[in-house]
């Protein structure tokens, strides 16, 4: 298990995760920034981390491979609140780095994890996706836990529910890690990472319609989960 700071530097949150300065990929994560950063070098600027991925880099910098770590944590985005968006939410991130870690290992690990979370009958399927810090990248769907895949309102009749993002760690990310730990040589090691939104899964599992319910402290809501 690992954790990291909620206030991060631009370097850990973006640059070392292969979001170069000025890159459009940064637009996908609207960021809350600490005041008074304009004069500082870009990499040192402080912000509210937009994902738990910076802990990947902090972990790799602090130890040579192998790494097998799960990272829960609070993250923030400069998003207007609505039923499914909250400026505050939580993610759980995973990172596995070693010699001979493959895409099929990523598939097997997540398939196993989803079965452990949602029952052994659950199936997974993987779609190509894009994240700056993984390549190849994938979105993972699980067979609908409500209808078993037949199609229902919750899965919009598709029989599948999109649950997490993942991929093989991008060699560029290893190159950043290797600045402090040269053993992260992408020619010798490989790895996978995955991440998911905690509230999203809880909303689906418990039938919660407003993400804001998690942050209101309403006794009538909390009392249902005793």
């Amino acid at each position, binding site marked *: 298990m690992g954790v990291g700071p*909620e206030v991060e530097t631009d370097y850990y949150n973006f640059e070392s995760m292969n979001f170069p300065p*000025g890159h459009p990929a940064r637009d996908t994560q609207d960021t809350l920034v*600490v005041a008074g950063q304009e004069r500082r070098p870009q990499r040192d600027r402080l912000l509210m981390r937009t994902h738990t991925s910076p802990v990947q880099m902090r972990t790799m910098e602090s130890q040579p491979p192998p790494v097998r770590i799960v990272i829960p944590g609070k993250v923030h985005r400069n998003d207007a609140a609505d039923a499914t968006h909250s400026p505050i939410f939580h993610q759980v991130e995973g990172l596995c780095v070693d010699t001979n870690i493959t895409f099929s290992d990523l598939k097997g690990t997540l398939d196993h994890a989803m079965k452990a979370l949602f029952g052994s009958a659950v199936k997974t399927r993987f779609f190509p996706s894009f994240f700056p810090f993984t390549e190849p990248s994938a979105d993972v769907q699980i067979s609908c836990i409500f209808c078993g895949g037949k199609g229902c309102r919750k899965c919009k009749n598709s029989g599948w529910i999109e649950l997490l993002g993942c991929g093989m760690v991008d060699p560029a990310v290893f190159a950043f890690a290797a600045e402090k730990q040269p053993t992260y040589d992408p020619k010798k090691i490989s790895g996978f990472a995955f991440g998911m939104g905690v509230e999203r899964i809880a909303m689906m599992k418990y039938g919660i319609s407003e993400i804001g319910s998690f942050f209101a402290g309403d006794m009538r809501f909390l009392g249902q989960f005793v």
Partner: protein
Amino acid sequence: MKILTKWLRAYLPDLPVDDAQLAEDLTLRGIAVEGVYDLGDGSGSLYEMDITTNRVDAMNHYGVAREATAIYGLTLPPLDFKLPQPKPVAKPFSVRIEAEDACGRFTARVLRGVTIGPSRDWFAGAEVATYFGLLEQKQISNAVDATNFAWIGMGQPTHVFDLDKIEGGIIVRRARKGERVKTLDGVERVLDPEDLIIADHAKPLGLAGVMGGWDSMITPETKNVLVEAAWFDPVAVRRTARRHGLHTDASHRFERGADYNAAEVASALVSSILLANGGWIEGDLVDARVPAIEARTANRKPVELKLSEVRRILGTTIDAEGITAATVEGVLTALGCGLAELAKKAELAKKAELAELAKGNEVWLVSQPSWRLDLEREIDLIEEVARVYGYNRFANTLPAFGEGVRALLWAAQESEVRRTLLAAGFHEAIGSTFCSAAEAALMAPQPGLAVPLGNPLSEEAGVLRPSLVAGMLAMIAGNLHRDVSDVRLFELGTVFSGTTEKVDERPALSFGAVGTLPEQGALHAARAIEFHDVKGAVEQVVGRFQSRTVLFDRFLAEAGLTPEWLHPYRAARVVVDGMTAGWFGQLHPRVAAERKLKEPVLLGELYLDRLYKLPLRQPIAREISRFQPVRRDFSLVLDESIAWEKIDQAVAGLRIPELVEWRAREVFRDAKLGAGEYALLLGATFQAADRTLREEELQEFQARVVEAVGKVGARLRS
């Protein structure tokens, strides 16, 4: 983005699947079709697409068609638009790229004698009216429709100028300080010296790759046209667009990388649509190129790709044969890559005893198509192989696992705190990470160290919370304002302090309670939650840790030591092993009034970073004595300023092994006592592990207790 299958099939008449299957096959390859809508007889389907930002090349009909060819092993016919022979011109139109870092190519074609009006369908299989009708794309005029057609059809932004508004020729350059241009949206813009612009010899005409200018736009009166198709640098376009708060189709594409080689084809496409209504071409296409940019877009150095690396990263497939050389070659060729097989590591093959071993050692030099700027490295090509091969054709394997689980540093302590409070009837909540500057000033344990945000969500969320009390209070108030009268909450979270240069994060615990205990019911009497209920909860939490001393103290209001959010007389400090571990008590009546809270609110905060320094308490069992315990009571009179804590410590300080338990049994005040005094009944139990206590021993113990409490100011009541 919307895609018509009718348009796709115009490019690929041999598509072997129906629209539904095509949608699924594309989606499984990462060209996600989010919705399929039947457009009725003969019109095919409309796809609602969701394509990831790295694949701008596929955000148009020709790009999606290219993906389909890779899936089904088809061949995509090249885009080719036949133009009439140009009329010769003595002096070609002048184009100069001054900003060679930001504009890699600028093509200009002069059309004269055109008629601006409704566009006509101009070649079979590609009908503006039909496609635009199905896409619900408004037809405006042949000039606008032509650029829209090139955009929707092949993803290349183009621009058309009224040639007669251009003075001299085109210069692509950075703006000069103070220059202005009115853009097509009618906004008069002051230009920044970093803005990349299209100018003529006298004035700026528009924002390069973002938006054209008002003064040179096509009007119904336009007779002569200049068609622009260019390549602009992603960062330069992004900066210009951002500075002016613009996000256009053109800027979207250029920011993510346009196709260097598409300019000429797009220019021909736009020109042919315009010329369908009459007119002629004057002179050859003017094509200004910057070789340095061409070298890093259209003519990149080929990438080496090894089959062994493909397999090392991707692993096991369900199909026993796995990823073969033929798979790699098939996928990459269909996507437009050029593959030259290297010497196949011939020496390696020779060294291998068996020729079989040479298999799997294929090495290719892969040249990347100009429209795929995202293909730069070996891993990018491996991803393409995995993507088109199909992610779900890989097996589910598990990596070897050799170690046990290492939990977080504070996991055990945090879970113990959580468990204790849940057992005490509190619910766990998560409050806002932010609070107002005023709340921070009132509630921060150390003043002046609150960290402000640069772009807060609101003024009430302007700073990083230095204390969890603000959030707790907000949640309690929220409940009360919704008429939920019994509230018991706690939050485990991070508090922040420091400067905008360095922010310190620490774990903290807040808790709050309002209402009755237990909740109102028919079979039991309920009473209001009061100070000692919360104190009990705090004692339980702190009691989970292995400390030497725990005490609660308070200060006179005048001392100024009690936090200002707490009631001056109903507050206590928690001191663990001599460290301040937190504060709790009743909310200050002024703060309560400001928030319109009529009920007394009990709340507090513990600094968990301090508690977490202590290990969790590990109970060690003690033999239970077989011998008779003896209880002795001491009736004490004390000054009001002497708290139980003092008596407790004095008794503990005796360290009499046979003194096994003591407590305050009663407190009372009556007229017989002096002013400012109170009476306390101290009950003590003596017991030895190995013998029955003798009377002399007991008397000695009693005397020592009386002496010890006497030293802190207690006297025996006569």
